[in-house]
């Protein structure tokens, strides 16, 4: 399904993206020629059942996976044409990735996990990094846990840290794959509010979810089914809903 687009401020632009997995005797087509455009500052939800192709789609945007066919342009960069090293560097500076299972490195403390992307991408001066990491942890209300190991934190706390890590290099885009899927509803709500605040701060967020309640709260919800975007719902901006 094609999406309405004003190409002038598009930060994510997918054209005819096909992904085929070679799973043995019968190849499996996870994406069937997806076109998608996301504008700067949008909060987009990818909704669908398990196996529908939504994670594959977000992996195309983050460069975690490569398309079999088609083009993926993010922030003006042809992601599909980058090699693994270029992708890593580009991703570290352009997209913050948040996973369902948090994926914090178990041997690093909370603050060290947040500083790691700055270290890898050589962003910010070394002396500045702890201060910035602490500032991000304050934003996600985890500053008091900065020197603990991830194993000492609850799931919701780990996800907050993962969000802080995703913001480490101040990327314009955040990609989150089921960020609330492993959290209870109260914690999930808190994490979602954090995302809303980031959108207010002009970040572009693409989030995969199978939770219809969460999907109802994003600006644009795209329903993925059987490797295609089959439906799009545009909700009123949050400020409008609040009557601002």
């Amino acid at each position, binding site marked *: 399904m094609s999406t309405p687009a004003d190409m002038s401020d598009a930060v994510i632009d997918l054209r005819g993206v096909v992904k085929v997995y070679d799973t*043995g005797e019968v190849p499996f087509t996870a994406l069937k020629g997806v076109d998608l455009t996301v504008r700067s500052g949008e909060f987009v939800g990818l909704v669908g059942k398990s196996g529908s192709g939504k994670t594959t789609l977000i*992996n195309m945007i*983050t*460069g*975690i*996976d*490569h398309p079999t066919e088609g083009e993926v342009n993010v922030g003006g960069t042809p992601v599909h044409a980058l090699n*693994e*090293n270029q992708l*890593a*560097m580009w*991703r*570290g*500076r352009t997209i913050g*990735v948040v*996973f369902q299972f948090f*994926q*914090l*490195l*178990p*041997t*690093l403390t909370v603050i*060290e*996990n947040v*500083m*790691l*992307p700055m*270290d*890898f*991408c050589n962003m910010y001066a*070394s002396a500045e990094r702890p201060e910035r990491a602490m500032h991000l942890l304050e934003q996600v209300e985890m500053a008091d846990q900065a020197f603990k190991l991830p194993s000492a934190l609850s799931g919701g706390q780990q996800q907050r840290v993962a969000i802080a*890590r*995703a913001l*480490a*290099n101040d990327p314009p885009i955040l990609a989150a794959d089921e960020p609330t899927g492993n959290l209870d509803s109260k914690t999930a709500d808190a994490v979602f509010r954090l995302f809303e605040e980031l959108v207010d701060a002009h970040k572009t967020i693409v989030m995969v979810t199978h939770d219809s309640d969460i999907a109802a709260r994003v600006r644009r919800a795209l329903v993925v089914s059987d490797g295609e975007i089959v439906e799009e719902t545009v909700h009123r901006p949050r400020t409008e809903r609040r009557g601002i």
Partner: protein
Amino acid sequence: MSPRWRKVWRDLTGHRFRTLLVVLSIAVGIFAITVVMGGRGILLREFEAVYAESMAPTITFDVDAADSSVVRAVERVEGVRMAEGRRTFPVRFTGGEQPRGVLSAGWDTLQVHAVANIATARIERTTLEAGRSWPPGAGEVLLERSVNMMSEYEPGDVITVETASGTRATLNVVGLVHDINAFPAHFVAGPTGYVSMETLRMLDEPDYFSTILAVAEGEPTQAEASRLAMSIRDDVLISRGVRVMRTSVPEPGSHFLGDIFRGVSLLLLALGVLSLFLSGFLVVTTVQAIMSQQVSQVGIMKAIGGRADQVTWMYLVMVTVYGLFAVVVGMPAGAAAGRWFTGFAADLLNFRVTSYAPPAYVVALGVAVGIAVPLLAAIVPVRAGTRISVVKALNATGMSGTSFGHGLIDRALGLLRGLPRPVALSLRNTFLRKGRLALTLITLTLASAVVMSVMSVRTSILATVDEVDMWRFDAQFYFALPQSAEAVDRIASRVEGVVAVSSMPEYRAVLSRADGSESDGIDIIGVVPESDFVAPRVTAGRWLEPTDASAIVLNSDVVKSEPELAVGTNATFNLLGEERDFEVVGVVTAGLMGPVAFTPSGYLDSLAGGTGAVTRLQVRTPTSEPTEQMRVARLVEQRLEERSVPVAFTQTQSEQRDQVASQLGILVTFLAIMGVILSVVGVIGLTGTMTINVLESTREIGVMRAIGASHGSIYQIFVTEGVVIALIAWALGALISYPMSFLLLDMLETAMGLPLTFEYSWAGVGIWLVAVVVIAVGASLLPAFRAAQVSVRDAIAYE
């Protein structure tokens, strides 16, 4: 420290058990290399230094009598750098004071060297190791230090010696010296003693020289040295009326233990190279296991901006740190064990070690094995691990990275029906990670093959020792002077416990070659062809027959040094001062006796003037019990003494066997030590591999426990897996060990120039089977026990 290096540090320090295991796996390789190669390096360096310092003679003449003027004449010959004379002769000796008239059995042979001044001797130099009198005065003796490998002697002790003519004297032991040119006492069942020329007079021995030692100028070849020897013999010695009994020109720079030494050195080198391979595979296996554990973390790091080269460096630095730790652990341990090993070898081979410092190249090799080999080994798995796509890395779980059911082996295992489910699971688990299994199997197979080959080489050496035993006596007696055969046979046969006797003449001869040169001394032994006291192993031609007269059978040592001699040819020997022709009718195995030939005793006696004199007596007893043989031997010796038949040397069959075995036994001992070291490498390797396998399966263990598996079931699964791997490695190792042991023995034969009998050690295969199963059970039980203690929640969350 930046976060990524903190992660490296925490991975090292946080997983202490894993770090310990990896460090031990690498350290054991360094240890083996340092012991084996270091031991070899020190032995070669020290042996060569001590031997060079001793100034071994290029030429040795055994003469009837020569004085200082003859020695000076030899020294004046062009090409001779220096010459010295000494008197050497055997006496029998025993500890303590034994006045004349006291009959004492239990004498040993002492090879006496009478030297004008041992302290200033320029050839065959000795070093004082203990004592004060240097050189010894009249009535004093210095003993070669290897005497203590037989029985304890120290300065201040007294010995009684008795010469062949029956003169008995008491000598004070005033010191122990080291003489690298003297046969070690335990090799020839008798030490060497050094006395002054004054002491000769106390022993009623003439004070002229019986041996002239000469060192040639420069570094002549053996052929050049032989030409020089012939020139000295003809132009200096014979022309001055000196009778030359033997001219010895050994291969220049070659010590008489050179064959054994080369054998030991070659074995050490071969085993060192194998150790290097073994530790290399161990490291590859270990690093690959670590990488597969880290794969999801690699994915996370790449997902948040880490480049492949950044992540690669993190793991390479980690491997370098493992290597550094391993060097710190393995190198000193290896050096300490190498020190012990070298000391042990130096005692056996009787040479001094002035420095136990391992050669620089061994230190470099150890560091290379510790750091470079792990790094090289790590490059492939680390690059593969860090180049994996992010999506694949993130999707990796504990049970993954693997797919089961597609390959031929998988399908075959799937067809196995009726196995208990835990056993079936173990079998399938074994083949789940095929890359890992292949590496583990290569490591274990190599270790198994080496251990089993070492056992086979040992068995082959022992079989060779058995072959040496061509005589069928229980005790034999050597006479310094020829004795009546009839008399000694009669005396011996009347001793209680003697059931059969055989006496034989034996003379030292030299082969007169076609070109006029002479061979080294060859002992010609007269035997009764049909006697059952001798059981030769004929390798060419035939054994002697009763109708033979001038027939002669040579042993393979004679044929080796005189290749023109073959069955059917004629051999001319200078025997008892006359040239005698013999027809070579057969060749028998050498049996480590040195160059020996056999001819009918009647014929040999006729050549000696038909005196019926013999120089050797053999007896048989009804028992093979060594102590009983010894008792009877002492009784025979005593009876002979009582009837004025002085015995120079007595030897029981078990003593002779021990003496032969002690020479090849050095190799056997070295092999046993090497076998133990390599077994330890194998044990640590298997333990490491199994532990990593189990650690990697921690999440599976959690899943199994979550669905109701008891601790016992978990143990059973992993122990079965370990035993299956060990059994496969054992079977493959046994297959490889056959050609490997054949090859090792062949190399040993070439190095030592000694024919060895190949005998594959089936017992070794059995012993290693038991050992490998025990090791596998132990290696899997310990990590499985640790894993079973982890809670289900932690096990499932295990990274």
